[in-house]
């Protein structure tokens, strides 16, 4: 294959991504085009530039509808334009674009007045990924899982549902998202109460549908433990309640682990790579919580 076609395609790709015909790639492309009927090459180039922008803009607006509503059509179009130029789409499925949008938002000066937009985008991305994630594998034999965990709790770790993601924010993003998704009385106006404590959200899909919930405080440590891939034995440590006696501590931890299965957050177990690694057995879970930065957390 000669380099002629390859060079042409690279130039076309760069020119189509740009705006106008002044950039070097666009000038090289225009030099290789002839009028199409009565249509000059510059207009041909513009047709593709507009179409590419529209395709990316429409796909992003479908994945981030609340962000698009929050900033308005023109502003979101500007975001999409930046995204299209700066973040290459590496996947043939248009529904897979957008992973880098939450990271792009803080870089755009014109969005400084909406400090919560990044986190709303992260939430919308998590919701989108949850919607298209694989189904959770069916647990055919829950008793055998219980037996395995009972025998060697140090040798197994729990596995989150493919659709699950954790989001942490300093802003009430769930309320913002909810107000736009399900406006009460048809209005999307509401008052944002300032909050001091960070909001921790959990997003997942069950047979009933998509869920976005605030993660209860008492489950923070144990959910973080699962996200970190620690052993079930260590999770029992994570679930301990300060000041309780040993039996109560164990019962509380087991109840918390059971609730993860009941909520379909956890869908299975996996053997640990090194079951003899008993680090942390004597201590509490103290690592920083794992927070998903706009990426689906797939642990299968």
């Amino acid at each position, binding site marked *: *294959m000669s380099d002629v076609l390859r060079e042409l395609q690279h130039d076309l790709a760069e020119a189509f991504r740009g705006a106008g015909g002044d950039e070097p790639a666009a000038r090289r492309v225009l030099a290789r085009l*002839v009028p199409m009927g*009565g249509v000059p*090459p510059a207009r041909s*180039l513009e047709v593709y530039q507009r179409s590419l922008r529209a395709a990316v803009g429409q796909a992003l607006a479908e994945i981030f509808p609340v962000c698009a509503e929050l900033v308005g059509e023109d502003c979101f179009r500007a975001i999409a334009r930046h995204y299209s130029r700066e973040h*290459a789409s590496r996947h*043939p*499925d248009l529904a897979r674009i957008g992973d880098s949008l939450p990271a792009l938002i803080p870089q755009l000066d014109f969005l400084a007045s909406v400090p919560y937009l990044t986190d709303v985008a992260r939430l919308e991305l998590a919701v989108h990924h949850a919607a*298209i994630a694989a*189904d959770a594998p069916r647990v055919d034999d829950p008793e055998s899982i219980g037996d395995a965990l009972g025998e060697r709790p140090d040798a197994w770790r729990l596995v989150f549902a493919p659709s699950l993601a954790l989001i942490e924010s300093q802003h009430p993003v769930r309320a913002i998202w909810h107000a736009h998704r399900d406006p009460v009385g048809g209005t999307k106006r509401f008052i944002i109460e300032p909050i001091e404590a960070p909001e921790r959200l959990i997003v997942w899909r069950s047979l009933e549908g998509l869920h976005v919930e605030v993660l209860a405080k008492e489950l923070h440590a144990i959910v973080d433990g699962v996200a970190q891939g620690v052993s079930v034995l260590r999770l029992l440590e994570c679930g301990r309640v300060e000041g309780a006696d040993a039996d109560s501590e164990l019962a509380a931890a087991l109840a918390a682990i059971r609730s993860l299965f009941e909520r379909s957050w956890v869908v299975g177990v996996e053997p640990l790579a090194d079951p003899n690694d008993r680090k942390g057995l004597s201590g509490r879970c103290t690592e920083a919580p794992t927070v998903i930065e706009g990426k689906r957390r797939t642990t299968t």
Partner: protein
Amino acid sequence: MDPGKRSDGGSDLVVGVGLGLRSAHFGELRAGAGGVAWLEALSDNYAHAAGPARRGLLELRDRYPMVLHGVGMSLGSTDPLDRDYLAAIAGLAREVEPAWISEHLAWVSVGGRHHHELLPLPFIDESIETLAAHIRIAQDVLDRRILVENSAAYLAFEGSQMSELDFVRGVLERADCGLLLDINNLYVNSRNHGFDPFVYLDAIPPDRVGQMHLGGHDDHGDLLIDAHGSAVAEPVWELFIRALERCPGVAVAIEWDRDVPSFDVLLAERDRAERLIESQILAEPRGVRRAS
């Protein structure tokens, strides 16, 4: 057993006029509304999807004969074919068991970057070689002959050495593949590039034509755009009649992707196409009759 009949008595035959499957019409299709003969599903919407989307497709597959139509294979790219993408299409095909799989005579990615737009190729030997090599690989991986669609193009390259007609014929021959003849694209290109679409139709090898597309375009005065957002235009219906004479018995799909209308509007387009097919059969007794 009749190879076109399923054990439950349904038919897997893709004949007559089908519809491009769009999520807006899932409800009607699940309910069996309109007596739709078959569906054309967009492979890219399902190849990488899991969960409810894939289940929804397979649920419809239980009821309707289906074909797969893709835009992401990038057959005309100078990049190597994306083997992961091909594997995903092959996996989807194993589940859907489509009557056939189609793609486009275009490229959508280069340098590993996807543009999500069908981009044009200059009509030169090198483009034919690139396309033919990639089509052959795709046919090997998918273990079947595929159809490739004549795409709309909105620019003209200085270095093109042949007409679109010779270009398409060259690819079909060298890749030994079939053609998905898009009647609207043919009309759009004929208007934009200034050639006679009837001459094109008369010269296309009919035995290579495995399916046809009908769809709407946007008229910008100096330029037609294949937008799939409106009803089929009258001149396209006229071309379709000629195409039916050349390629009797070939299955036809109605495409409508943007501003998707109500199901009834889509069925009205389907009905018009069916009436034209019926009248063509009546006018040509030796034509290949549609299976009942």
